[in-house]
């Protein structure tokens, strides 16, 4: 193998092993920041040695043993400091773990479950509410996604030192707040889990909003988020909302090739060429949704959104869409997680299921909503419904307003075409 090949191979091992490594170390040293430093030390040693010795047969175990030796070195160096007894106790613990290392191969299967627990603890810690959202995102990608600081910076279009700072501060915050390395239980678990899901979905949406010409690291965030979601679904299989989120992401990702036109213009769901939807991801999404539904109980917000996405995914043509079911799902979503944007989508679903007048009634209730004041989709939807009802003058004014609010040039063009069509007394521009 050439040197760059070996380097790439080591990076690949790191992608696969780093989260498990950091999680296992964090359980021993009870400090996520220190655990990551130790894991990085082991990586540096691997980068020095492996090009000479070749990659070991079990690289994960090698990295873990090396990192544990580093842990002991560090503790010995710090032993002169205050908490002598406590530190010595920790050293004995790690020595014991090292003595057990010989049996590790035999115990691999038994340990696999513990690794899962450690990973789950690591996810909950990285997404702890004591951290800012930005810090949670950066820490999750770094500790669980195995991304470098540089990769995170490129993906989020921020300077590398900013991300590095964010991670350093996040680790310090966790240490200062003495956040325990554990999986929360009871009522706290629900709240903490929704923070985890929020972080993963945020990463996904950041990638989903990438546009042509962006660095490839941006759309790759969708893959990173999907991978995190799929991992979490196996770590916490009894959590319906985890499967709900995975289902939502799989189905949304299935449309990636269909949602942008040749010149980079966004293509709305109903106008997409469904032959370009990825059937593999749709099937995976529907399977994940089924797992969420089988766990029983009322569907949570992610599972409801996934169920809505699934209605579209199941329809071979836009005409086959089960709009009555979508409207009912939006009803449930509006009850559970009310927001003006959900209301607007609910209005669209109602107009498709029960006619434009039913939709317009719901949209009209939103026109005084302050958070939608500058949201171009509100006048755009209202214009569409008015045009369908033949109220072209009002419709034209709404399309003009929507055109003045959108930041997307191509969308503005489409809205102005619709305004012009209304001026001619027609609901749709000529094709």
């Amino acid at each position, binding site marked *: 193998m050439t040197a760059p090949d070996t380097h*790439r*191979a080591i*990076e*690949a*091992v790191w*992608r*696969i092993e780093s989260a498990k490594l950091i999680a296992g170390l964090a359980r021993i040293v009870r400090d996520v920041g220190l655990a990551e430093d130790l894991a990085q030390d082991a990586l540096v040693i691997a980068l020095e040695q492996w090009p000479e010795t070749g990659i070991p*047969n079990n690289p994960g175990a090698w990295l873990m043993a090396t990192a544990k030796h580093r842990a002991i070195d560090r503790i010995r160096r710090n032993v002169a400091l205050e908490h002598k007894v406590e530190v010595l106790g920790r050293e004995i613990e790690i020595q014991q773990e090292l003595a057990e290392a010989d049996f590790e191969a035999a115990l691999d*299967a038994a340990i*696999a479950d513990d690794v*899962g627990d450690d990973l789950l603890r690591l996810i909950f810690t990285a997404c702890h509410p004591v951290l800012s959202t930005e810090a949670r995102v950066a820490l999750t990608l770094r500790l669980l996604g*195995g991304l470098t600081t540089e990769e995170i910076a490129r993906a989020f279009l921020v300077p590398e030192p900013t991300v590095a700072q964010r991670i350093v501060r996040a680790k310090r915050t966790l240490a200062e707040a003495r956040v325990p390395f554990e999986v929360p239980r009871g009522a706290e678990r629900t709240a903490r889990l929704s923070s985890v899901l929020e972080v993963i979905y945020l990463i996904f949406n950041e990638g989903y909003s990438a546009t*042509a010409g962006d660095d*490839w690291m941006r*759309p*790759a965030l*969708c*893959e*990173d988020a*999907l*991978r*995190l*979601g*799929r*991992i979490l679904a*196996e*770590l916490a299989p009894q959590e319906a909302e985890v499967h709900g989120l995975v289902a939502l992401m799989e189905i949304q*990702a*299935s*449309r*990636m*090739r269909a949602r942008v036109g040749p010149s980079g213009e966004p293509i709305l769901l109903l106008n997409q060429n469904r032959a*370009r*939807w*990825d059937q*593999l*991801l749709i099937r*995976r999404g529907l399977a994940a949704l089924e797992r969420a539904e089988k766990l029983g109980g009322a569907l949570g917000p992610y599972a409801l959104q996934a169920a809505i996405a699934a209605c579209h995914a199941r329809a071979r043509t836009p005409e086959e869409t089960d709009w009555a079911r979508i409207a009912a799902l939006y009803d449930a979503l509006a009850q559970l997680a009310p927001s003006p944007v959900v209301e607007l989508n609910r209005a669209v679903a109602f107009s498709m299921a029960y006619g434009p007048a039913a939709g317009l009634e719901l949209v009209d209730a939103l026109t005084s909503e302050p958070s939608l004041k500058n949201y171009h989709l509100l006048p755009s939807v209202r214009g569409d419904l008015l045009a369908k009802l033949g109220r072209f003058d009002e419709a034209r004014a709404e399309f003009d307003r929507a055109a003045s609010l959108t930041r997307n040039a191509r969308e503005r063009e489409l809205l102005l075409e619709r305004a012009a069509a209304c001026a001619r007394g027609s609901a749709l521009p000529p094709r």
Partner: protein
Amino acid sequence: MRFLMYTIGDDSVPIPPPSPELMAEMGRFMDEATKAGVLLATGAMAPSAQGVTVWFSDGKFTVTDGPYAETKELIGGWALVQVASKAEAIDWAKRFLRIVGRGESRIRQVFGPEDVEPKRA
């Protein structure tokens, strides 16, 4: 990035049925790959004798039953994985082959919905 990884073998040579130990180890490996979030789909090929080849040339179809002439180049099983790089796909193939003991695995990138399509010139 999506990759199709497939094993290559000679299906005129019968393979002895895998030992229970190998089956168990393979089960653990598949479990690990699923838990790592990389495994999208897997499958195994039926013997090539059951296969069919359809040719189309000069406006004429020719349908031939298997097996193929070159039996050493046949696909046995396959796995579709989603990983961060080609190097990562290679690492998973190594993990797989280490369990099997010996064999040949080939890796081809498959374009998924996340890949930008080549622009027309």
